[in-house]
């Protein structure tokens, strides 16, 4: 009897040790794998992206400033032309406009969920917003193309396919991302803050505007930057509604434009690995990656600088 118990104990501690070892190994492998993949992607894109300048000897100044794009144009016709300014400008413009539309809406929704109607907001509204994230981008693009574009064309003017259409579609797509992060940062605030503020005789509005928002500001900025990064990287939906006009910088929000992501998706199937036309696309991809890395670093910096606590 006693013996059996001892054996049982031994067994369980043995299996515990094996479990622990197994768990440790699996998680370590996962972690290392992720690190390796990220490093490989960064190296690969950097190597590919720089070859436009190092192998094909395109001047970086032309790449950033010129807006004429035709990397396959034979030299006899004045080619190749590798000016990515139109795409960079288009991407930044559309994402910024989307943010201007989306950020205030998100902030309002987040405040509503956490402060105004916590019960209803968290039970109904938050799941609905999270559902937004699950809608595939091609669906947003398709709806944009068949509803928004004709609406803009018939009621506002222009081609319909425009910076405006792209920004609106994008703003809907980044809205749930920004809102979720903002809700989390507002929720993370201790309830003491509300109580202290009310005890001082502040109204609900004063509490929200003067106490809670400043305290949650770093977290909310993180949400905005995440939204911006997501907006810059979005390809399909924007490509479907923005018109993709190369060679012309949009002067009005009703003009069509072109983005970095859409030139990559449009040209990659038609170009051959190792040629200038393909390398130029890698350069744009590299630039896109650098921009999002900068944003991620920004998030880190802002996240560390906490106003409250």
């Amino acid at each position: 009897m006693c013996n059996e118990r001892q054996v049982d104990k031994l067994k369980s501690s043995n299996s515990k040790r094996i479990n622990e070892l197994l768990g440790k190994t699996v998680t370590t492998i996962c972690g290392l794998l992720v690190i390796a993949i990220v490093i490989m992607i960064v190296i690969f894109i950097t190597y590919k992206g720089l070859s436009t300048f190092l192998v094909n000897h395109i001047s970086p100044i032309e790449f950033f400033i010129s807006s004429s794009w035709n990397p396959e144009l034979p030299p006899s016709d004045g080619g190749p032309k590798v000016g990515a300014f139109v795409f960079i400008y288009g991407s930044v413009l559309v994402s910024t406009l989307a943010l201007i539309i989306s950020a205030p809406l998100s902030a309002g929704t987040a405040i509503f969920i956490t402060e105004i109607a916590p019960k209803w907001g968290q039970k109904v509204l938050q799941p609905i917003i999270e559902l937004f994230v699950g809608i595939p981008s091609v669906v947003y693009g398709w709806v944009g193309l068949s509803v928004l574009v004709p609406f803009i064309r018939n009621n506002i003017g222009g081609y319909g396919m425009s910076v405006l259409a792209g920004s609106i579609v994008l703003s809907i797509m980044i809205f749930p991302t920004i809102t979720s992060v903002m809700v989390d940062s507002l929720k993370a605030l201790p309830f003491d803050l509300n109580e202290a503020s009310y005890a001082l005789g502040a109204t609900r509005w004063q509490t929200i505007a003067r106490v809670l928002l400043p305290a949650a500001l770093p977290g909310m900025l993180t949400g905005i930057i995440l939204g911006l990064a997501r907006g810059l990287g979005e390809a399909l939906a924007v490509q479907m509604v923005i018109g993709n006009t190369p060679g012309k910088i949009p002067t009005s929000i009703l003009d069509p434009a072109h983005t970095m992501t859409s030139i990559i998706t449009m040209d990659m199937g038609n170009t051959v690995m190792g040629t200038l036309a393909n390398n130029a696309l890698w350069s744009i991809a590299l630039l896109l990656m650098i921009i999002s890395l900068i944003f991620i670093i920004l998030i880190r910096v802002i996240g560390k600088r906490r106003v409250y606590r």
Partner: protein
Amino acid sequence: MLNSKRLVLVLLSVLLIAMVILSGCGSSQSRQPTAPGNGSSSSEQNSGQSSTSEDTLSGTITAAGSTAMQPLVEKAAARFMELHPNVTITVQGGGSGTGLSQVANGAVDIGNSDVFAEEKLGADQAKELVDHQVIAQGFAAIVNKDVQVDSLTKQQLIDIFTGKVTNWKDVGGQDLKIVVVNRPTSSGTRVTFIAKALDGAQVIEGNTLTEDSNGTVLATVAQQPGAISYLGLAYLDESVKALKIDGVEPTVENIVAGTYPVWSFGHMYTKGEPKEPVKSFLDFMTSDDVAQIAKKLNYIAGSDAAKLK
């Protein structure tokens, strides 16, 4: 102990799910016949193994590339597989550039391209490829249905696409702004259209829209008042109007008769001389069987294609 066991279980199941998803992706990628107009490039997996056998034809053939050629190659492959049940043929899209680079790398057996390999690949790589000009395809200038123009001269087409004429009233239509919808500069359809219909004229970039796939071109031209673009005959449908060029309708009959100028050979490239079963399949592409299929899909193949040479 229960907790750690559960953790391990969860981790293992996550790994398992990941593996299932990954392997599922891999297999679907290699067999999925991509929908027309899919611009995405397929992975460069090495799935091309052509095994030879003595008595019956067997093995696998993979083909990738031009989306303009894809519908015919898919249909022909289906017919070929009926005749030779031991042969599996996979037809992918991805664009002419993808087809050429994958066949040059040996990733696929047949690379479909709208343009000559020399135009996309370096001379060294192009030398290794054997061109099989087994099918031909016509391209039509298409306009929005509301445009009151049925026929344009070549000169008028050139004027429109180079931006000299910007209103339909200048070419015999109503007072309506012309909206040019181009393909990306790297597109094979664009290269052919510019060479054959516009006599190599430099098309404008500013104030034009760009769409990369046959499907989106069709949708855009159908929606956009005053739009003009170009499309492979196989993709034409009732939603747009195909223009006559110099009074000649864009039909397979007129191309074979030599009166309609905008067509090109579709190239099916192999690396080196083709082995079985690829060789039999390429021979099959010139048969009357495929000629019949081609006629239905608005391509030119078999004896008709031979006439064009």
